[in-house]
Structure formats: structure tokens, C-alpha cells
């Protein structure tokens, strides 16, 4: 460790980036709960340092050839030697920059959004906790360490979704998110343990270089890969564990922007990319992942087509974009997946933050309501939102266009064209629901004469300023990030991986995106449009989509009927009736038998006397004869 001076600088930067948010969390919890300004300062300061360190590391190591590793072994038990430390390579250099940028911007934005909230300090404490966990997760050197922070990220998500704990639905959503991701994590955990038992090594670098996997049978690799993928399914809200994410929108909007779209849910995809060489050892597992990504992507797109809640639309689109990333990775497009992750973080955070401005201003989540109240007159958020939606749909020249083309390119490389067809279908749906929302906001059917921008105090202006600044930064990123595709591709180091793929999928994707937007225009945008989508005209389909394909009903049935009222009740009954019943029965039998014997000893003493005489006489007779 710390061989050369350059290394100790690296180490210091890494330590600062991971430890400072933790200390700011502790400090806020312990000391500054009563002073919101100090708390916010601490938290934002820590996030700024993280951002600085991350950018510094990225700049310093832009020509990184081999991964850098710092590790100290944490002896948890004999025979269990788990290295804890940092693994720095190109993938997580990119990741920490994305994470810290979004963290920092969202925290600044929250200064405005959360300004009057009584739990302001608590909010920033949890934000710091999240920053710590997410940065550490990205830099983890071993799979177990990654799991450690993976769970902590889940915890901060739970705390932040249920941040307004007096709202019952929010706490319900937080619980659901935690338990559902936990279900995925159980598989992940089992996968880690299996891998550890069979290879004795959880070091990510070793797993990726496949040096730890010598002599491990392929079927075992497939099994553990699929189990580990379970964690990704939970965290990235893929099928079948996807329903927690839309519910998670109960949290404050900046939280949705940070955790439930840009960074935390991307942790699943990040893990996929992190272990990509390991996963790619098993073609069976890869095709399973590809299928799951596709199913999630299509399911979530259909759900987004009918939602009226602005945040839920973006939530569904998050699931479907994560599905795209997993499809890309599953199809072997490593760069495409990572690139889409990066661009998605930018434009999705932007979309949520814009929605947050509207929600903060108009206090409703309903898209039609927002349009009617005059959302389009708030210029900065509205323009940013259009930019974000266009990027999401994959329209040039925005960042989303480039990454989506890359994804399509990797899908086109597959021998089976079903995946590409599904992907193109997804592109169409994405463009359709994004622009459906935009047109509803832009062209409301009935106008309200109220003045949206007036009647603001100076305080309101300041809040708005804090919220607008991140929007502008993120819009800029969204516009220009796409042009960095080639440098990024070189940086990640997989240039030319796709080879010379045919160009027609790219053209088709662009055409379908435009077509999606056009359909949305016909149904929602043009003058006299009824603003009723084609899905809503088919009642059963509409129901199916609006009820999220009845996945929640299935889980409700499983938890309430089968587990709660079924097995758990049986256990309880067994306790009460069988075990306690038999023990109580034994005790009562003892007491009762005592009582029976006691009746022989009570009431007429003379009976006993008579009995004595009778016995004596009988004994006498017996001895006599």
C-alpha cells in the first residue's frame, strides 16, 4: 500500500470521498439536528469534496491502464479473510463522477425544495448517508464489501422514501421498497456465499480477471451468476421485482431524482458492468439477463403509457431504461450499457428535478392538473423538461440519442433479431409516453387564468434560484454529453467492440422515435386532439396497464394470504394450541389429579375410619385363614 507519493494522494482522495459524507451524517445526527443551515452546509460541503475528489481522480487517471487497488484485510473470523478497500478502474472512476455530480446537484436543489420542511436536518443526514454508501459501493474492492454498502444504500432509500413518515402511503412504500429489494438481495447474498465457498476469493478484480475461477465448473458459475443477478433485479427494479419503484415516488422529489432514477437504481446495472467479465463466462446466464431486461423494459413502457402521475411516468421510464441497459450488457455491449447509464443519469435526474419544480409550485402530481395550472409558463423547468424528454426518446443531438443508438447497435449484433425488434418497439413506446406527457403539459385543454409566476416573496425567489441552477447545469450536460461518445469509448477501453454493425437499426430507431413522438402529437398535441391515448380506448388493456399487469395483486396475495394468513397463522396456532396447549394441559392435568386425590381426604372423616376398619378386618381374616 501507498508505494509512491502519487498513490498516497490517491488514497487520501479516496478516503476523503468516502469518509467525509459519513462523518457529516454522524455530525448531523448527533450535533446539528436543531440547526438546519449548518446541517445543509455540512452535507453539501461533503458532497462538494466528493465531487472534487472524483473529478480530480478521473482527470489524473484518464490514461489508466491497470486497475489500482488499495486493500486492508478485515479478519472477520479465521478462515474468512475479506479484503476491505478501494478498487479504482475506469468504470468506477466514471461512476463516482456521475454519482457525486448528481448528489451534489440534488443537494443544492434540495435547499430550495425542502426549505420549509421540519425535517430539514434529518433530510440532509440521510442524504449524506446515501452519498457515503453509494460512493463506497462504487469503489468497493470485494464483493462482500459491495454487498455491505449495497444494503446501506437500500437503508438510505428506505429512510428517504419514508421521509414524510406521517404520510401512511410513504411509509408503506418505503417498507415495500426495502423488503422487495431485500428479496433480491437474499439471492445476491446466497450467490456471494456460494462463490466464496467454492473459490475462497471475493475480490472483484480477481473474479473479473477470472484468476479466481480456475477449475470451477461452468454450471456453478451459471448458478452463482444468476443468483447474484437476483440482487440486480431487486435494486434496479427489474421484472419480477419492479413494482416497488413507482411506489417509491412517495418520497420527496429530489430523492426520486437522486436515488430512484439516476444513481441508486443504477447500482444494479453498475454491478452488472462491474462483474461483466465474470457474467460473460456463462452464456446461459447472459441470455437470462437479456430476457429479463427485455421483459422489464416492455412491461414498464406499457405502464408509463397510461399513468397520470408525472413522477410515476418517469419512474416507469426509469425501469424501462434500466431494462435497456441490462439488455445492452446482456447482449455483450459493455460500452453501450455503461454509456446509457451515464447519459440516463443526467437526463433522468433532469426530468425529475423539473417535475419537482412543478410539484413544489402547484402541489399536485397529476399531469393534466399541472398543465391546466400553467406549468408551461415556468420557462426554465419547461424547456429543460422538453430537452430531457427528447433525450429520453433518443432524439438527436441530445445525449440519449447517442447512447440509445449504441444500445441498438449491440442488440443488432445478436444473431437472433427478436431482441432487436423488442428494443425498437421499446424505442417507439418511450418516445410515445415521453411526448404524451410533454404535450399534455404544453397544450392543456382548459386554461386557468391564475397568474403562476406572481405573488412570490423574496424567499420564494431564492428557493427557485437554488432549484433552477442544477436544472441549467443538467440541461447543458444533456445537450453536450452525447458528443463525448468517442472519447468515452476510448476511455472505457473497448473501442471498436461493436465492429462495423449495419446502420439500418440506427435509422430504424431514429425513425421509430420520431414516429412515437408523432403519434403522441396526433393524440395529445395537435389542436382539437382529445388527449386520449390509443391504449385508453381499449378498456381491458388500459386496466391491465394501469394495474401494472396485476403484479402487485400477486404480491399482495402472496404476502397477505399465503404468508400472513396462511403459514404464519399456522405457526402461531401451533404455538398457542399445540405446544402451549399440551404444556398447559400437562400442568392442568397435574393440578386436576391432585384435586381428585384431595377429594378422598375431605368431608366425612368417618369414611376413612370405616375403611381402616374394613382393611384391618380383611387383613386379620387373610392372616387367620
Amino acid at each position, binding site marked *: 500500500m501507498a508505494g509512491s507519493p502519487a498513490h498516497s494522494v490517491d488514497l487520501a482522495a479516496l478516503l476523503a470521498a468516502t469518509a467525509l459524507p459519513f462523518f457529516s451524517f454522524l455530525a448531523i445526527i448527533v450535533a446539528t439536528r436543531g440547526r438546519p443551515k449548518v446541517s445543509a452546509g455540512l452535507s453539501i460541503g461533503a458532497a462538494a469534496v466528493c465531487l472534487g475528489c472524483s473529478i480530480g481522480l478521473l482527470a489524473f487517471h484518464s490514461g489508466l491502464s491497470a486497475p489500482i487497488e488499495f486493500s486492508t484485510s478485515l479478519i472477520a473470523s479465521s478462515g474468512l479473510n475479506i479484503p476491505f478497500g478501494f478498487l479504482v478502474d475506469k468504470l468506477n472512476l466514471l461512476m463516482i463522477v456521475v454519482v457525486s455530480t448528481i448528489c451534489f446537484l440534488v443537494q443544492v436543489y434540495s435547499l430550495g425544495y425542502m426549505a420549509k420542511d421540519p425535517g430539514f436536518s434529518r433530510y440532509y443526514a440521510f442524504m449524506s448517508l446515501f452519498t457515503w454508501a453509494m460512493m463506497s459501493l462504487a469503489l468497493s474492492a470485494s464483493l462482500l464489501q459491495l454487498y455491505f*454498502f449495497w444494503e*446501506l444504500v437500500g437503508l438510505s432509500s428506505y429512510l428517504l422514501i419514508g421521509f414524510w413518515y406521517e404520510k401512511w402511503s410513504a411509509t408503506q412504500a*418505503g*417498507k415495500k421498497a426495502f423488503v422487495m429489494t431485500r428479496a433480491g438481495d*437474499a439471492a445476491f447474498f*446466497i450467490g456471494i*456465499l456460494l462463490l466464496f465457498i467454492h473459490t475462497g476469493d471475493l475480490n472483484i478484480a480477481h473474479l473479473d480477471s477470472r484468476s479466481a475461477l480456475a477449475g470451477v465448473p461452468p454450471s456453478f458459475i451459471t448458478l452463482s451468476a444468476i443468483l447474484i443477478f437476483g440482487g440486480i433485479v431487486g435494486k434496479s427494479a427489474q421484472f419480477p421485482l419492479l413494482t416497488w419503484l413507482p411506489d417509491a415516488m412517495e418520497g420527496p422529489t429530489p430523492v426520486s431524482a437522486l436515488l430512484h432514477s439516476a444513481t441508486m437504481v443504477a447500482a444494479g446495472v453498475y454491478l452488472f458492468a462491474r462483474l461483466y467479465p465474470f457474467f460473460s463466462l456463462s452464456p446461459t446466464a447472459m441470455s437470462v439477463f437479456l430476457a429479463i431486461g427485455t421483459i422489464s423494459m416492455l412491461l414498464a413502457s406499457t405502464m408509463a403509457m397510461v399513468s397520470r402521475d408525472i413522477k410515476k411516468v418517469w419512474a416507469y421510464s426509469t425501469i424501462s431504461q434500466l431494462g435497456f441497459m441490462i439488455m445492452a450488457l446482456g447482449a455483450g455491449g459493455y460500452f453501450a450499457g455503461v454509456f446509457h447509464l451515464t447519459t440516463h443519469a443526467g437526463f433522468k435526474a433532469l426530468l425529475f428535478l423539473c417535475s419537482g419544480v412543478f410539484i413544489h409550485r402547484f402541489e399536485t402530481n397529476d399531469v393534466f392538473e399541472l398543465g391546466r395550472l400553467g406549468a408551461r409558463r415556468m420557462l426554465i423547468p419547461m424547456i429543460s423538461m422538453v430537452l430531457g424528454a427528447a433525450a429520453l426518446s433518443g432524439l438527436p443531438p441530445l445525449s440519449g440519442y447517442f447512447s440509445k443508438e449504441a444500445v441498438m447497435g449491440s442488440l443488432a449484433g445478436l444473431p437472433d433479431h427478436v431482441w432487436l425488434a423488442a428494443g425498437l418497439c421499446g424505442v417507439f413506446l418511450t418516445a410515445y409516453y415521453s411526448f404524451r406527457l410533454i404535450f399534455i403539459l404544453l397544450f392543456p385543454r382548459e386554461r386557468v387564468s391564475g397568474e403562476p409566476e406572481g405573488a412570490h416573496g423574496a424567499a420564494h425567489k431564492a428557493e427557485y434560484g437554488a432549484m433552477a441552477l442544477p436544472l441549467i447545469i443538467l440541461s447543458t450536460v444533456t445537450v453536450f454529453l452525447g458528443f463525448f461518445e468517442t472519447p468515452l469509448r476510448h476511455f472505457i477501453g473497448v473501442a471498436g467492440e461493436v465492429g462495423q454493425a449495419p446502420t439500418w437499426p440506427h435509422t430504424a430507431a431514429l425513425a421509430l422515435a420520431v414516429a412515437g413522438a408523432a403519434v403522441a402529437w396526433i393524440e395529445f398535441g395537435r389542436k382539437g386532439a382529445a388527449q386520449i391515448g390509443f391504449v385508453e380506448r381499449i378498456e381491458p388493456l388500459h386496466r391491465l396497464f394501469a394495474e401494472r399487469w396485476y403484479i402487485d395483486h400477486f404480491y399482495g396475495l402472496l404476502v397477505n394470504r399465503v404468508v400472513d394468513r396462511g403459514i*404464519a397463522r399456522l405457526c402461531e396456532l401451533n404455538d398457542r394450541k399445540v405446544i*402451549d396447549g399440551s404444556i398447559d394441559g400437562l400442568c392442568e392435568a397435574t393440578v386436576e389429579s391432585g384435586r381428585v386425590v384431595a377429594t378422598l381426604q375431605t368431608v366425612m372423616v368417618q369414611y376413612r375410619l370405616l375403611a381402616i376398619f374394613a382393611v384391618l378386618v380383611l387383613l386379620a381374616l387373610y392372616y387367620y385363614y
Partner: protein
Amino acid sequence: MQMEPASFPFLSAILLSCVVGMITIIVIPEEKKLLIKQVSVFFSGICLLLSVYVFFAFNRSAGGFQFVENVNWIPSLGISYFNGVDGFSLPNILLTGIVFFTGVLTMWELETRVKEYFALYFVLVAGVFGLFMSLDLFFIFVWYDVSLFPMYLLIAVWGTTRKEYGAMKLTLYLLAGSALILPAIIFLWAKSGLDTFSFVSLMHPGLFTPSVQKFAFLLLFIGFGILAAVWPFHTWSPDGHVAAPHGVSMVHAGVLMKIGAFGVLRLAIMLCPLGWIYWAKLMAVLAIIGIIYGALAGLRQTDLKYVIGYSSVSHMGVVGLGLSTVTVEGLNGAVFQMFAHGIMTALFFSSVGYIYDRTHTKNIPELGGLSRIVPVASAFFIVAALAGIGLPGLANFWGELVVFLAAFKVYPLFGVIAVVTLVVTALFMLRVVQKTFYGPANPRYAALRDVTPWLGVPRIILVAVLLILGLYPALLFNVIRTASVPFMNGLPR
């Protein structure tokens, strides 16, 4: 076996401070309640300091039994006052010290029969300390019963829900346990032919024939297993927890159940290793049933203390699973889990006690929205619940991780079941947190005041211990392995 005699009898000093504390409390007139409490805090603080000292002064590189004190008591029967600690008992001594001290502080607001309560409490803890440090089978049995009888009185007099029933059930179950332990001890004493109750002399592989070991192990396992709430002997535990006053619940769940697991480890496993290997499958089956069963039954409860009681059954199942693997990791994980679970439940009951004292109900549907009113008190409970879920960063994670790892090696199917059960645990823990603390503030409790410093101190200590061990588990593992590694190496295969 290496034995280092003590330069100063630290272990006896711990016992003595319990006894002196009890006598002092008896001497003080009844009306001076505050003085009684201060004296209790003082003497339990001495116990805590001594146990912390012993924990850190223990020579980790030497291992073996340390701080040994040996005085012949009844030479003709081979009974001696023989104390010493090794890597297995040391964490438990520290645990007892912490729970004792925090338990006294938790009962700071007690107003009825203060003197009797604390006097009995000191007797209880003296028994527990004695059992953990004793190396003489006869004394181990005596200490077991010493710690048992105050429990009955403490629950029956100061308890709450169905207290007579709970107290009687607990006492009968534990007496049934001791009715199995005593014959087992005498059986081993007779079969050894050494005329000694000394644990160290009896702990020689090959001293007992395999059939003797199998028989004695079963008796000792069930006898102590009752105390460790092994399924299906667990139903006394939730009822007992619910009935007990919360300071006693802390000792009860935090320490007394550990006596059971510790007894299984020290007497059953260490004296009859062949029996252990023979019955390991049975232990594993009972443990895994306990894990699932406790979690599922906990899902249905509506009384805060019942929920925690059943979660204890589940968590103690993890300890049992660790013990049943017959591996070094299994033992390490089990002892670590014992410690972590002790601290966690102490925190739980301490928090529930606070809520009950203020609201006079433990019924979850009647609570709700407490977070708004008493945020700090709620935070402590939530930390305990998170520890119960096995969240990384808190101590329980490591215990579970190591146990599961060992289980995966030996019983892969059980390992899978145990990990999946974590999801159910998460579900019911979070459900309780949600229904108790979240939601709109209940106007009925609007006037409650948050934690006062006297009541905050014990909880802060417990949370700090959970956090420290969660971030640096080697602190404890390094101690435990000094006992587990030599023991497993000396095991006849």
C-alpha cells in the same frame, strides 16, 4: 489446556461487587429510592468497568483459560470454587456487564418496591456472572439456579401482561431444564471416575466413551436448549418477555437466553464432542425450524414485546445453526451472534420499556405516529430493528454472515432457507416500526416528553456497541477464535 492464574481475582471481584451491592441496597431504608438507584448504578458500573477491563486485558495471543482462581471447597466430592475465562465466556461476561449496567439505568423511573427490585436484580446478575465464569460443573449448576429464582419474583411482582402465568411458565420450563442438567452432570461425574467436578479435568477427549457422550449430550442439549429457546421448547420465552418488567426483559432476553446457548457450548459441546458430532444434524434441524418459525410467528403478533420475543427465537436459531455446523466458523459466528443479539434485544426492550412507561400500552394498533412526538426514543428502537434485520454496519450482520457461511458449507439447503428468512424478518420488523412510529401523530400521546439523559445513556451505550462491532467485528472475533480454534483442532475425528 493452558491456565494462567490471576494476579488479582478480577472475576471474584465482579461477583463480590454484585453481592456487596445487594447487601448495601438491603441496608438502605426503603424510602430513599433515589439513593438506592444511585447505589445500584454505582455497583453495576463497577461490574461493567471490571468486565471491560477483563475483556481488554485478556491475552489474545495466549488464549486458553485466563484470570483463573481455584479454591478447594469440598475436596471429598471434588468440588472447588474454580473460575476462569476463555474466548467463549469472555464476550458473555462483557455482555452481562453492559446489559446489567444499562438495565439498571433503564429502570431509573421505577417507583414501586424499588429496594426489593434492585436487590433481586443484583442476585439475578450475580448468578449469571457466576455461571459464565465458573469452571466447576457443580457451581455451574448452582449458579444456574441462583439466576433462576429471582426471575420468578421479578416477573410475578413487577411484571405486566399475564405476569403470574408468564412467571410460572418460565420457572417451570427452566426447572425442567435443570432437572435434565443435574442428572447429566452427575452422570458425567460418575462416569469419569476422577472424583472431580472440575471442567478442565473433565474436558479431555477420550475420557468418556462415545455412548456416554451421546447420552449426556442429549440431556445437556435439551436442558440448556430450553433456556436458549430451541424450538419446540421456545414458548416460555415470548410469554416470559412479555410479562417481565423491561429491565428484567433486557437481562432475560439479552443474557439469560445466552446462558442456554453458552451452556450448550460449554457443557454439552466441549465435554461431549462426540455426542455433538453425532447429534449435530438434529441440532441443525431444530435450529432452522426455530429460525423460520420465529420469524413467521413474529409476523402475526400485535404486542410489541411478543414481536421481539419471537424475533429472539428466530435469532437464537441462528446461534443454534452456528453451533450445529461443527466448524470453527460456526462456533465463531454463534458466539458473536450471541453477543450481538444480547445487545440488540437489550436495546429493543429498553426502548419498548420507555414507550410502555409513557403510553401504558404495548399493543401496536393503539400506538402509531410516535416518531413525531418522541423522535429520539423512536430512533433507538429503529436502530435495534435494523440490527435485527441484519443490516451491515451493525453487529448482527457479522454474526449472521459467519454463521450462514459455515452453514452453507455443511448444510447448503438450510443456509438458503436461513437467508430467505431474512426477508420475512425484514418484513415484520419494518411493519412494527411502521405501525408504531410512523403515520400521523396520535393526539393521545401528544404530551409525551422525549428521552431524558438518564434514560438516554443506556441506549447510547447499546447503540455505540452495536455500531463499533458492526464496523470493526475483529474486536470480538479475535477473542472468540482463541477458544474455538484450539478446541476444534483438538477434536477427535
